[in-house]
């Protein structure tokens, strides 16, 4: 079985930051492997270790800067990586779900995997929609918010649990090929070993333009326009206790005694 994992480098934001136009000012931004994708990579690598998968390929949409994050996925055990980037993507404010779907679908079609694992959502723009959209676009089956996957794939089915609200899980069988969006907690993502990190440097990382994957610029034109970004007006009417830790702790102590919940 061949597995494709979608990997995104997400922007992280410091506690204090400033907004410039519709973006957070660059100096307050960091970069990290998307938390949900980390679990998707781990699941794929475990499937490989269990002898179920024979190849794990990652696909990323992003500029050269994000290769560090891609290498992280390779260091954890993926075999090779595809990174799609193009001048045409450089100035795009908001790469919406449809644009990502076009790009990822083209790569999935070329790679022809049996299983695609994506994260439930990206920690920065949190659309939570790309995996399912790609599946529908390609005629793959899918399951959203998967927190357990059986590794035997009996009868060509992926037996999964979908994590619903309120501590309820749905037990579902999904035909392959399929896209599963992976929820945190499905496994324990490993840290890359030193050996893994060294090996990752040698693994193939294939860079492709839109033309390379056969996507026309007009296919990624988005109908959504990001028009504003602002810090939400604080609705906080909290009492902020000020002072040294012993002073604030003592205020909290008084509150707990007042409420009669601690002595």
């Amino acid at each position: 079985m061949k597995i494709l994992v979608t990997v995104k480098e997400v922007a992280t934001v410091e506690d204090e930051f400033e907004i410039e136009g519709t973006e957070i000012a660059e100096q307050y931004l960091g970069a990290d492997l998307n938390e949900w994708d980390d679990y998707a990579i781990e699941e794929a690598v475990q499937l490989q270790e269990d002898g179920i998968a024979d190849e794990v390929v990652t696909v990323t949409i992003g500029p050269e800067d994000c290769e560090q994050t891609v290498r992280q996925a390779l260091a954890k055990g993926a075999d090779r990586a595809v990174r799609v980037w193009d001048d045409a993507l450089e100035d795009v404010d908001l790469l919406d779900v449809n644009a990502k779907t076009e790009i990822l679908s083209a790569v999935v079609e070329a790679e022809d995997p049996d299983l695609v694992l994506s994260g439930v959502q990206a920690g920065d723009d949190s659309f939570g929609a790309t995996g399912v959209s790609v599946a529908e676009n390609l005629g793959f089956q899918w399951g959203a918010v998967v927190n357990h996957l059986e590794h035997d794939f009996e009868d060509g089915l992926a037996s999964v649990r979908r994590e619903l609200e309120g501590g309820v899980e749905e037990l579902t069988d999904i035909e392959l090929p399929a896209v599963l969006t992976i929820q945190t907690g499905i496994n324990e993502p490993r840290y890359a070993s030193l050996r893994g990190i060294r090996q990752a440097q040698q693994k193939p990382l294939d860079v492709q333009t839109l033309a390379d994957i056969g996507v026309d610029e007009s296919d990624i034109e988005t109908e959504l326009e990001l028009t504003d970004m602002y810090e939400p007006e604080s609705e906080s009417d909290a009492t902020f206790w000020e002072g040294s830790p012993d002073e604030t702790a003592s205020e909290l102590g008084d509150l707990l005694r007042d409420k009669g919940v601690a002595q």
Partner: protein
Amino acid sequence: MTDVLAVADHRRGELRDVSYESITAGRQLADETGGDLHIAVISGTVDDFAAKLNRDGVDTIHTVSHGEEFNHDVYSQAITQLYDELAPQYVLTPNSVNGLDYAPAIANELDLPVVTDTVDLDNDGETLVATREMYGGKVETTTELEGDAVITIRGAEWPAAEGTGDATIEAFDADIDEDAIGSTVNGFEEVGGGDVDISEADLLVSVGRGIEEEENLDLIRDLADALGATLSSSRPIVDNGWLPKNRQVGQSGKVVTPDVYIAIGISGAVQHVAGMKGSDTIVAINTDPNAPIMDIADYAIVDDLFDVVPELIDEFDG
């Protein structure tokens, strides 16, 4: 071309709250576009559901009788067929786990843009302005689009519709292609049982990712002991395997309403807040004065938990 089609959410025989909230959101949008509000209710006891959904502001309810529980293929087929018939401007679905299992698919199938997890919607007759959060609630954004779209709405952002409506209830004869159904739901399981029930506690000491390391959890355990409180947590602590699932507060964990909830090193992501906002008194201990948890906190200490918690233990142990 100006109508709104909102899709109800139900599970194991019960309509979920967001179904009534999407009536409010849908009515507001339909008033702005000058169209009608249609509700689709698919699978399960649809006639019973339709009677309950018949609240103020609903024009027509379309029932699709097919199977008992949610199946995304059935939903996708039924909704795209309803879309073809009604030609609404907006399809509105809940941003629930199931909503995210079909909304992106119908958007793709219908070749429409999709905007998920909206917290506010506004249409001036031409342009839709959708408000959504980014970066875990650190910022809000507005996104504009013209024309038709699929939109998912976050739960508990719009009030539930009330009253008794005079909607027309119609059975919609969807043509469900069984061969195109690629997944089968075999059952459900409740998880997170076990020795403690955090929803019973009067005082919860709840810990989040700010604790950094598993070893540091002892500090919070000591605090819970000193206070005679019950220990709970945000999701990452459970995902890491540091605490069992029955300690998790939130959308996919437990809903708790203690007298006092102390959130220590928890940012207050929407899925966490869904599980604890009903607490009588909320105290946040967090180094970030702008963390979203501050919006719902009654009291806050903006400081390092590793400095404050030992002092608090002393208060009660000393």
